[in-house]
């Protein structure tokens, strides 16, 4: 199942790291973004201490509780989110809107890093839908399978139209 997820995401132009421990993942995320000045990070990213670790490295971290979140998000170079549901086939990762987990974090910055545990993985979309239909739906559940793309220019794929041009998935486990 993990192999199918990784293969599907890579085939769809995502970078995939892991599965790895929280500790290693923290180092990985810091390494990926330390060259950037402003990074937006949701509150539900499942790596303990990630915000502090980034700030220690001199990264300016914007969190949803910041009163200037909306204005500053446009300048963020990376958005970091956490997911609690992923599907192996077709390979896709769900982000639930919630307080502390805005929809725009995975949409506005040009790079999106999503952290998800392999425990969150189910085999098919049908399995996932059975599960979530039984529970309470968030106001917005966004499934992401890869970078923003279009085939509108002579049916040749171009990445990064409106949403992120790069999607990196960090697997915990």
């Amino acid at each position, binding site marked *: 199942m993990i192999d199918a997820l990784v293969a*599907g995401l890579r085939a*769809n132009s995502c970078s995939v790291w892991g599965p790895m421990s929280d500790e290693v993942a923290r180092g990985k995320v810091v390494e990926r973004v330390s060259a950037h000045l402003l990074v937006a990070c949701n509150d539900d990213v499942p790596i303990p201490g990630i915000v502090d670790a980034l700030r220690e490295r001199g990264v300016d971290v914007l969190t*949803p509780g910041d009163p200037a*979140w*909306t204005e500053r998000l*446009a300048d963020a170079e990376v958005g970091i989110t956490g997911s609690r549901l992923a599907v192996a*086939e*077709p*390979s*896709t990762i769900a982000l639930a*809107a*919630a*307080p*502390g987990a*805005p*929809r*725009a974090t995975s*949409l506005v910055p040009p790079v999106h890093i999503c952290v998800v545990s392999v425990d969150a993985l189910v085999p*098919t*979309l*049908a*399995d*996932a*839908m*059975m599960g*979530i*239909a039984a529970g309470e*739906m*968030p*106001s*917005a*559940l*966004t*499934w*992401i*399978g*890869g*970078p*923003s*793309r*279009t*085939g*509108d*220019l*002579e*049916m*040749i794929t*171009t990445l*990064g*139209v*409106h*949403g*992120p041009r790069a999607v990196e998935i960090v697997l915990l486990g």
Partner: protein
Amino acid sequence: MSDTVPRHTGGHAITTPGDDFHERTASAVADPILQRALHNLDRRLRTANESAAAHPEWKDRAAAIRRETLLDLDGWLDRLEHSLVARGVHVHRASTPADARRTIVELAQARGARTVVKSKSMATEEIDLGNALEDAGLTSVETDLGEYIVQLAGERPSHMITPAIHKTLPQIRDVLAREAGTDLAVDREALTAWARDRLRGEFLRADIGITGVNFAAADTGTLVLVTNEGNGRFCTTLPRVHVAVMPVEKVIPRLADVGILLPLLTTHATGQALSNYVTMISGPRRAGETDGPDELHVVFLDNRRRTLLGTRYEEMLACIRCGACLNVCPVYRNVSGHAYDSVYSGPMGKVLTPLLSGGTEGADLPYGSTLCHACSDACPVKIPLGDMILALRADVPDPQSGARRRRRIFWAVWARAWSTPRGYKLTTALARMSHGRVPGLRAWTSTRELPRPARESFRDRWAKEHV
């Protein structure tokens, strides 16, 4: 630019001139630039067909779900309305396009809205919403890249999944450069980057986001939107009001049904196992959330659809707007969408246009068909499009044309298809896919055996071995 002069009807430039479908077909076939642009459809056909063939059993399940819905469409709509209202969503029922336009324009005016951003939706094309908003003094901006190009050119989408398929890259550059007021390179990345910047500003400015709906689950009151670019996500994230226009047949009984319908839609539309973004919206922004609209409105659009229930055209309402029937249609592939002079084109447009207009529009469309049934075979929800086209010939009289004209379009298309290497490639590819039935010869081959084409043509093998 194409050397044909754009003709304006109902606010849209028609790049394919002619008084009826037959004449427009002939001018489309004779337009070398259009023909060059249409080569690009071949890319889609191959990938979409390969992935669509992967799960044949899904078609049966999907067809069953759609027919279950149609058996009690009104009941499911009531349940959907109930679930939506329970989530704080405003539901409006519009029986005509004019009702839908009025509802949305009034809603926009009551909120003092000035700019509206739209995500690609055939339903809003059907009700001509963009022009209605502009007439009411609002700025309406299409944000899907292809649709934005088409809007700037003053045209109509020519394909429901890839609206600007009729344009080549240099033509697209010309359209965008005119808007930019500067020169732009004929370069995909550069053109995309320019449009991204420009449309970002529109998203930030917009008061209202308008989208269609791909599926609406009655049990949970969830709207499902399928996109790849992310513009649909912007339209439902930044503006404070989101209005979704939902033709009544988009309702599905259960959210769990999208587990089947969604992959089927995307494999048939673009060849993707799933689109890069699927957004499931269950109500407006909740307390404590940072973004999302404060108000969510859903407009149920009927426009004669419910009159089809119980008729031999009822199954047309099972359509999930994947575009597969356009991609395989030998007529569509040679003439593109503008020749149909209607919102919906290709085989599904030939059926839907006369039905939704009560026979006043597109009455000549069912006559311009090769009756090869490639569309029926391609349809993921098993709509017998070919049979319906034939039935419409009996039910909707061809307003103007005699048999001679009908023969003319047939020959114009087929002469072209068989006289070019691409046309030959296409028809033999179609023949392989339809297991030995050459399109156009279905009736003939149903009683005779055609030699089964090799699984790979000599041409394909040659191309493979020489790259």
